């Protein structure tokens, strides 16, 4: 077992920290989106975590939802219905995409939750939207205060924002080590760390990650001459898929995954009043979600410009798009995205579905690598 597995991945896989918090009487709230304003939940003394589905055999979920919906929702629900998330006291969803909205009510009805809340995101991003979202977040704060009989003071919010900003800064530092011309960490290991960040309190995660980054800086780079690739997609928590890609002679050096750079690509300005600061911070995030964009900009263009920036920064030789067949939002945007990005850089499109068809992915990725190497 390597260091990343031991220090981070266990926390996610065995939910070691979550069990510990639960044992000490803390309440755990699960979310479905990297856009969830976790700082407010954290400031209430609750533990915000992200829900993922680990099961690949769909036994329960098909009797509740159609088999063609997005794999993330399907897998989350399967685990929920099988009782894997019994430790959750509640859920918080965000209107960041077409799946998260119904997930909120399906989970509440079919899996059950003491507390359930849907945070409403604005569509266009401008000063009016920031004011609107500030009000929405204040309402969310009040809801938590009432339900859990706590007072979320400005000081507590400021402390939580500071903790989360540090977390985002550390994750950016980790990503820089992966993006370097001689990467020090693989994307599959990075994903394990991301999953841990979603499964424990950020103050503990920060200390752990800071120590790990210090070690990593001293370590030798991964010794290889692989082609450099940017990975584009939505939510990916399946380490195996990244391992398959990396096994074909690829270094994944940047991404726009919501279990990746989208989670920390922004900062919350601590000089504003805390709730307004969160509103500004989350809405400043470039293309973290597919349904909102700066006013006057097409969401698709916003996403494209984010990917182009990442590709430029990482010096990627190609882009691998991980398409989710069940994601209607992706389905609308992907053909255009492929065409646009394909003008400047080689593109490989992979249809992702679980259980993974490893051999089929290998053939495609190996062929992609061969076509780039020439």
């Amino acid at each position, binding site marked *: 077992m390597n260091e990343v597995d031991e220090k981070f991945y266990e926390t996610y896989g065995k939910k070691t920290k979550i069990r510990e918090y639960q044992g000490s009487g803390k309440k755990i709230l699960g979310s479905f989106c990297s856009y969830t304003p976790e700082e407010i939940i954290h400031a209430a003394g609750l533990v915000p975590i992200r829900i993922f589905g680990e099961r690949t055999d769909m036994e329960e979920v098909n009797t509740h939802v159609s088999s063609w919906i997005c794999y993330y929702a399907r897998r989350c629900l399967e685990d929920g219905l099988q009782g894997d998330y019994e430790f959750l006291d509640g859920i918080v969803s965000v209107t960041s995409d077409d799946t998260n909205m119904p997930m909120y009510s399906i989970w509440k009805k079919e899996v059950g939750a003491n507390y359930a809340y849907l945070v409403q995101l604005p569509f266009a991003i401008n000063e009016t939207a920031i004011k609107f979202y500030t009000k929405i977040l204040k309402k969310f704060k009040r809801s938590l205060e009432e339900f859990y009989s706590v007072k979320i003071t400005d000081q507590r919010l400021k402390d939580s924002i500071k903790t989360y900003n540090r977390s985002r800064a550390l994750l950016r530092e980790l990503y820089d080590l992966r993006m370097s011309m001689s990467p020090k960490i693989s994307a599959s290991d990075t994903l394990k760390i991301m999953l841990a960040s979603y499964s424990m309190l950020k103050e503990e995660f920060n200390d752990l990650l800071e120590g790990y980054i210090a070690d990593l800086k001293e370590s030798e780079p991964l010794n290889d001459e692989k082609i450099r690739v940017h990975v584009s997609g939505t939510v990916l928590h399946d380490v195996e898929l990244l391992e398959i890609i990396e096994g074909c002679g690829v270094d994944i050096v940047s991404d726009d995954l919501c279990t990746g750079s989208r989670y920390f690509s922004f900062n919350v300005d601590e000089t504003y009043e805390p709730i307004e600061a969160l509103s500004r911070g989350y809405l400043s995030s470039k293309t973290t979600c597919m349904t909102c964009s700066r006013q006057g900009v097409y969401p698709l263009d916003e996403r494209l410009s984010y990917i182009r920036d990442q590709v430029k920064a990482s010096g990627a030789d190609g882009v691998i798009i991980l398409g989710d067949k069940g994601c209607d939002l992706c389905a609308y945007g992907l053909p255009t995205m492929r065409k646009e990005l*394909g003008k400047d850089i080689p593109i490989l499109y992979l249809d992702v579905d679980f259980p993974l068809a490893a051999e089929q992915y290998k053939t495609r990725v190996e062929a992609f690598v061969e076509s780039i190497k020439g």
Partner: protein
Amino acid sequence: MYFCGIDIGSLTTKVVIIDEEDIVGYRFTKSGINPRGIILNLYEDTIRDCGIDKRDVRFITATGYGRNVATAFFADEKVTEITCHAKGVRKIFPDCHTVIDIGGQDSKAMRLDENGRVRSFAMNDKCAAGSGRFLEVMANALGINIEDMGSLSLKSKNRVAISSTCTVFAESEVVSLIAAEKDKEDIIAGLHDAIATRVSGLAKNVGIEDEVVMTGGVAKNVGMVRSFERKIGHTIYIPPEPLITGALGAALISREKFLDRKSREL
């Protein structure tokens, strides 16, 4: 000096031997369940056909789904079938820019640049629709030989529309069409159109540019080729033996690798 390419596909395994200039010999056989034995036997048989000494074969490249098995005990190198098909097709058709390959279990479309490099490609997903297997199942349902499908379909006067591309559903659709006393020829033509629609979607994804070449076992079906031509509006060229282009490409890669290695040693 001789060079070998071996393409271990889901249905058929093919071997091609080339010298410094051209093809010296080739063979193919059903892939079966004993890949090691089949690879070795087929290789030995081809060597015997060519009347050459095994020791003169300097480099072997494996491709296709069984490429990992082959490199484990036999081949020097493995390369994906996508790169190999591009290479093999370019040898026969130097102006080819689009390759449509339909094999036993998958179909793919490749777009080549001026230098014959793969610029983009698309493959079918986890589904038998648009594959050689699809046609096998349908030939069976119609009680005919798969080899006869092409010529029969050319006799069609009223092509039937097949609405399912799922192999199982399409089979039951064919059974209902037989019960409705539709002509065999018309049903086959409809099946070809169904595959052509499905696979031309892949081709359009990568962008179709002349010349278009079709490879793989299904390219031997003339009715299938005509369906494609109608669908995409381009003339389709077929290699003399469309089954072996992948193995030919692998053999050409063997030669490149060997010569490259030798020149580096000098």
